[in-house]
């Protein structure tokens, strides 16, 4: 399905819609239609209809995925205050393909609540020093978490952009393209991290505006990876000032490693936090310094063998999912993945959907399943991980080795990693220190102490010091 063809129909609605005639497209400041895509190939277009704002969603693969269609239909039939209301419209819009053939297509019309994302709302309250709405928001947010849980709703995309605070102070979830109702014993924990992070964010905004601003600027309140750097400080403060729910939430987030279990307890904590207001407790809070960049050497003690075949675990596929079997043939630990690599030195890269993480031999999450890409170099104990188009380095404990980021990182070979920064190539050590300056047009991995680089179109061979040894 082409966005151009959808846009042609939406911009010229006359006769093209079964029920939505009169729809028109919203445009941004540059005059372009507001169109976004999602990883599952849905096309979302911001529109106005009868004076109200909506998102018109074209799910990408309904013809091949009847299960997804059923989920969307079930979801649209729900009446739930915490989810933006949506309507499933079967064979709603007549679209032409590139060859000029027309057909009716399904669409979902989702309300776009008037309001702003929760972090923007919190920031605006902080700027105007207006705490009252934030206290109310904390209560509403706790109620949202309970409502979702009671309805067994799994949203999969809870973050501070997807929670809208409406003009009448309700918290409403948007970005609902992966929402579905949990069936059977399906895990209901998928949204816990997003809820916990947001709960802590609102609490800090309520209590101390300066801390909120500082942490918000450092992304410490929007991603698990960022939060881990401030969690110990928050735990300490909570302990000293008797803010038990904050301490427990921070501990849970710090220790969860990508999966936060226990929704009932989480909802209790969010509810309790809404009734505690202790700005004085955070008076001496300071941002932690960037983490030390010293590498942590790989430890093989937990592996049992050196270079065993997949560390004594066998990665197999069952029912379309990957899992690990022990040598006895039984499942080594709970956990099934869409993607899984063999273990190496006690760690393996696994993926769910399009996100990747690192696990240990007990199945514990060492790096949250939240990265765009992870490559694990077991012998050296270093992982190269990418998120939002930037790559950096982690150790086997999931600890970030450096605050620096690169546009691209190559493989770890001969103790060096080729790296790209702003279009120039150089080499770094596994600790993230620059080893060879970023002065090349292109650079290849080291082999036997030598690497090929390209400088002004000419291939050269350099050594570990960056000295040219061959032209």
């Amino acid at each position, binding site marked *: 399905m082409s*966005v151009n063809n959808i846009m042609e129909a939406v911009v010229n609605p006359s006769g093209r819609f079964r029920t939505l005639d009169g729809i028109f497209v919203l445009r941004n400041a540059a005059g372009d239609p507001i169109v976004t895509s999602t990883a599952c190939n849905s096309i979302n277009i911001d529109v106005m209809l009868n004076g109200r704002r909506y998102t018109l969603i074209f799910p990408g693969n309904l013809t091949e995925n009847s299960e997804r269609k059923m989920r969307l239909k079930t979801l649209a039939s729900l009446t739930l205050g915490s989810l933006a209301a949506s309507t499933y419209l079967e064979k709603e819009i007549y679209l032409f393909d590139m060859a000029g053939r027309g057909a009716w297509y399904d669409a979902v019309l989702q309300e776009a609540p008037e309001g702003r994302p929760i972090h923007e709302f919190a920031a605006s309250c902080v700027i105007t020093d207006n705490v009252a709405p934030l206290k109310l928001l904390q209560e509403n947010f706790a109620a949202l978490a309970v409502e979702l849980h009671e309805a067994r709703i799994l949203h999969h995309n809870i973050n501070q*952009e997807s929670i809208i605070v409406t003009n009448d102070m309700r918290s409403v979830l948007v970005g609902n393209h992966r929402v579905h109702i949990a069936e059977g014993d399906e895990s209901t924990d998928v949204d816990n991290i997003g809820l916990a992070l947001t709960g802590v964010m609102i609490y800090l905004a309520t209590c101390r505006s300066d801390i909120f601003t500082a942490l918000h600027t450092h992304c410490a309140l929007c991603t698990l990876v960022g939060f881990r750097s401030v969690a110990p400080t928050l735990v300490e403060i909570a302990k000293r000032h008797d803010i038990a729910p904050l301490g427990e939430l921070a501990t849970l987030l710090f220790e969860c490693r990508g999966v936060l279990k226990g929704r009932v307890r989480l909802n209790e904590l969010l509810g309790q936090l809404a009734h505690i207001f202790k700005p004085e407790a955070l008076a001496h809070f300071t941002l932690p310094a960037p983490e030390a960049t010293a590498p942590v050497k790989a430890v093989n003690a937990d592996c049992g063998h050196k270079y065993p075949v997949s560390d004594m675990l066998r990665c197999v596929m069952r029912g379309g999912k990957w899992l690990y079997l022990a040598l006895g043939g039984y499942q080594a630990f709970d956990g099934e993945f869409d993607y899984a690599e063999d273990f190496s030195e006690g760690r393996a890269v696994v993926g769910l959907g399009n996100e990747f993480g690192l696990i240990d031999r007990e199945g514990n999450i060492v790096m949250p399943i939240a990265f765009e890409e992870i490559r694990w170099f077991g012998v050296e104990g270093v992982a190269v991980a990418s998120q939002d188009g930037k790559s950096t380095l982690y150790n086997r404990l999931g600890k970030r080795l450096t605050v620096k980021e690169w546009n691209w990182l190559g493989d770890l070979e001969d103790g060096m990693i080729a790296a790209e920064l702003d279009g120039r190539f150089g080499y770094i050590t596994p600790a993230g220190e620059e080893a060879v300056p970023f002065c090349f047009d292109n650079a290849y991995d080291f082999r036997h102490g030598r690497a090929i680089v390209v400088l002004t179109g000419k291939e050269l061979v350099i050594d570990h010091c960056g000295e040219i040894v061959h032209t």
Partner: protein
Amino acid sequence: MYSARITQTNPSAFIFLLDQSGSMEEPVEFLGSRTSKAEAVALTANMLISEIIHRSSREKGIRDYFHLALLGYGNDEVYPLTAKASGGSDVEGFMTVSRLAGLDVRRRSYTRERRLPSGESLLTTTEQKFWIEPRARSNTPMYKALTEGFALARRWCTKQSHAGSYPPIIFNITDGEASDADDKSLLAISESIRALSTSDGNVLLINSHISSVGTSGPVIFPCSQQCPGNARHARLLYDMSSPMPESYNDHIRRIKTDGERPPFRGMSYNCPIESLLTIIDIGSISINLIQ
């Protein structure tokens, strides 16, 4: 093969080579209007650029899933089609999607007639940004353009950061024969292009020959039985073009009649200009692999 996830750290690339020789000034019927071939080709390429930008748009902004190189050829030269608007390319002849999206370029509306299921006829108007401007001058230096395409693709593929990426796709859109080389040279440079690769597969070269309305014997993504043996230029384009990977077969079959079996070749010949939309649509299905 041809299955690498397209991410910002593992992007893919499109290279457009657009014939802008004098013959592109010939009038054609396109989307219900009379226009020039040059205008129609530019509109089609601009539509694909829009599509790529929309598919790369996320809630937090545009992500650089693709690198694009846009080259025109005509009047004995090969030139970047966006240089004037952008003041240059991002990296070595390529522009990122976010950079293209941010350019302030001309917009133009086009109208087409649609027949709705009710039988009602409807004129629809759509606005299109023009990153590529139409042009038609002098001769057809296709060899030079393919050589430049080869150099761009080679530089892109040999970047170690692209080693595992979905391979680049080159669209060569022309209405005539090369004026700067013989068949042997064209076959040699095409073979060099097709030999380039990432670990996910070889570079795909799709040659699309367009014609004015009314020509006979159009061929689109031909299978081996359809190989146009009696038309020298068609045979040349066939031999120059990439066999399409298996992952494209379902999409190609939808526009074919029963009985045509893969492998299909990435070429079209004597096709009405509107089929260019289909060719580019199928040739760019890799945009569905965006993570």
